[in-house]
């Protein structure tokens, strides 16, 4: 294998390698790290972030950004909790629907009114957050336990948390869409050179419309899981989720300028950041050091920087991955 080829592979799969190394480290150092309880709880919790990051990944691949995902998830959780007495499915639909509404407005702002994605979604972040607080009357909204709504977030299916199943399905769909549909390839084309894409006769606006809509819907779905998992709609949750999602996407090798990206590597990015958090918790539990939550944020930030710098070095020497597989 030639050197540039090796570097290129490292660039594409570096995040997977880092993930494996971190898991290996955790397994060697902590007794219950690979225990069933730890694995399921890590997956259960991070599946929400995974969903949000998936939508973010598509938005970023078009060269845009969606800052509203955190507030949208909070809004989704409140709406789902309010609707949960009507039944689990109705709660689920309502939460996702609320997310789709936010996504729809984002999509219209960006593609029809030509407002910069950063500004448009920043505005929607505030608006969605405000709406969530209004609907919830500034407190958490308890979900209905009779309707079975809580099993979405708390139960297992074939020994595996349902939220993780949902996330896995979403990622499989996302992977297929990105790699095997013209819309998916269009997402990357728009991000790579929007003018050229238009001149090539591709429906650039429709593609962008769809990614913002999908991002909203996925954030709403994450909100449903949030409400179901914690038994309450949380209007003040979701703060900083958008940043976590952006971080995971970037760690996964997706260029913030758009045009290059991968669904699989985004999932690896989510798991990497999530498990890093988990490892820090274990380390605290060992009692050697005691890190406050603030220190954990600092460490995660530094880690993110290291990854991004490494990637910049690698990608300047190697070349970008064309396809996911």
């Amino acid at each position, binding site marked *: 294998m030639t050197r540039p080829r090796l570097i290129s592979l490292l660039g594409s799969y570096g995040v997977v390698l880092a993930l494996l190394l971190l898991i290996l480290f955790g397994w060697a150092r902590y007794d219950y790290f690979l225990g069933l309880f730890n694995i399921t709880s890590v997956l259960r919790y991070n599946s929400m972030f995974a969903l949000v990051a998936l939508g973010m990944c598509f938005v970023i691949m078009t060269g845009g950004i969606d800052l509203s995902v955190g507030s949208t998830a909070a809004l989704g959780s409140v709406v789902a909790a309010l609707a949960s007495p009507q039944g689990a499915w109705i709660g689920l639909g309502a939460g996702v629907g609320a997310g789709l509404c936010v996504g729809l407005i984002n999509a219209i702002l960006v593609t029809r009114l030509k407002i910069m994605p950063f500004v448009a979604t920043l505005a929607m972040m505030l608006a969605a957050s405000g709406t969530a607080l209004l609907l919830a009357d500034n407190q958490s909204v308890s979900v209905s336990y009779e309707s079975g709504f809580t099993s979405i977030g708390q139960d297992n299916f074939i020994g595996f948390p349902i939220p993780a199943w949902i996330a896995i399905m979403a990622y499989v769909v996302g992977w297929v869409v990105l790699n095997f*549909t013209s819309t998916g*390839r269009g997402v990357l084309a728009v991000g790579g050179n929007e003018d050229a894409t238009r001149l090539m*006769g591709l429906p650039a606006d429709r593609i962008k419309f769809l990614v913002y809509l999908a991002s909203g819907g996925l954030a709403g779905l994450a909100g449903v899981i949030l409400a179901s998992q914690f038994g309450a709609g949380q209007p003040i949750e979701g703060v900083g989720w958008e940043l976590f999602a952006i971080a995971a996407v970037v760690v996964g090798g997706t260029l913030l300028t758009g*045009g290059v990206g991968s669904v699989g590597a985004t999932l690896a990015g989510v798991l990497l950041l999530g498990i890093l958090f988990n490892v820090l918790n274990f380390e605290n539990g060992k009692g050697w050091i005691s890190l406050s939550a603030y220190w954990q944020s600092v460490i995660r930030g530094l880690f993110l920087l290291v990854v991004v710098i490494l990637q910049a070095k690698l990608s300047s020497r190697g070349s*970008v991955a064309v396809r996911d597989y």
Partner: protein
Amino acid sequence: MILRLASALIGRWLFFGISIAMPEPSDAFRIGFAMNTDNLLSMTAIDKRFAGIPALSGASFAVGRGEVHALIGQNGAGKSTLIKVLTGYYKRDAGEVVFDGKPFEVSSPQQAQASGISTIYQEINLVPYRSITENICLGREARRCGLLDWKRMHQEAEALLQRFNVRADVRRPLMEFNTATQQMVAIARAIGFSAKLVIMDEPTSSLDEREVAVLFNVIRQLKQEGVSVVFVSHKLDELYEVCDRVTIMRDGRTVKTAAMNEIDKIGLVSAMLGRAIERAEGHATAFSDRDEKKIGKVLLSAENLAINQIVQDVSFNVRSGEIAGFAGLLGAGRTETARLVFGIDRPHAGSMIFNGQTFDPHKPSDAIAAGMGFCTEDRKSEGIVPDMSVAENMMLALMPKLSKSGVIDEKAQRDIVERFIRQLGIKCSGSDQKVRELSGGNQQKVLLGRWLAMNPRLLILDEPTRGIDVGAKAEIQALIKTLADQGLAVLMISSELEEVIEGADRVFVLREGISVAEFDRDEATEDAVMSAMAHGSAPTVAEAAP
């Protein structure tokens, strides 16, 4: 229905009747008639304005079936606008378009493509990060069970490129390939859409001779298949090789349409310029003989520069008031040498002396501070900031000098901008017009203005007239000459032999990263320079050096 059929038949009969009844119809008349009955496309009385300024006024254009039709004109004549109106990128203000016998109303390139019009734009408009296959197949993907069939798409892309004798790994990102391959990909994409009309906007500007020959074969192939081609080019010789008819545009109007075999080059140029050509016979460029007395002492000398494999051993010097030309084939290391001089890259070996002092620029700002300017080859990606105004683009490099403790002196800025717009003859609606709206020649003038505003002592021009039409080319060449006469040292890289030979006071020939020859003005004949470019055999540098 039957009535319409009958009337069409009667129309045919009438046509035959008339053409038989007319004993000696003039050529123009016959062409005119052929156009009416057998046109694939006819655009009539098209108007288009941008911010009130007319870009097209009453332009008319018709293309027959299976015809290769040249569209030429100076920069800003309206060729690109006409094409973009046709492909739905712009909406026309007035006029009518008939395509394939039906009124043609499209609002996007996508619709135009679906109706059978494919376009290859002047600036390669593809997605660099994506693979060749994707760039060719996006928009008409092969599917199996509703999902993309990558295997078949790769095969299709390979087969299409095969027509151009291009062999490339279609799975790799486009940006890994050279410009010529990228251009071929753009053409392959357009042809792959089984279009009725293919529009090529300067397709040959980044191709070498062999590739141009391949392209012409493909155009002839298309013609045989009944596909019409609109061919935009500034290289007049090419038109005669491959086109049937030509339409000439000037100031937003279509001023003349003629069969290629009925109009000579002088006729084309004078129709484009709208005046008789003032140039003396025997000169193909606007560099008339220069007064060599004005040439001063050596300003920049470089010895044995080297970087990577591209530049291995390049030595040259430039004197004040002199135009030094770099000749060489693509990949000879001319641009790379210029980048070393300007501090963009750092040489692995060699040394430079500028203005009597050792010169070792670490970054472009070092070179700028020393008094250099560099107009790059790739205006679009390395030169202009398209969304900024003419004034802002011109002031970019000067900004640090013009600001007093961080505040920009607005008045001084405006004065300078207005002066250069006047001096360089930049055609714009005002200094605050966005540069992206200007034609290529005017963009180049803005870049020249940017560096001239710095009052440089040495100006490096990399392909200063590439992609610029004949008229603006002459203007820019004359401008370069005037600047040199005023004492500016100019290092000019050009792939157009006549430009280097007639323009430069001395010609340095680079071949495979080595400076193989140096010619004075009177020694620099086409034969001598070309043989040095090709074989490196010429008077040795040592002998010819002053």
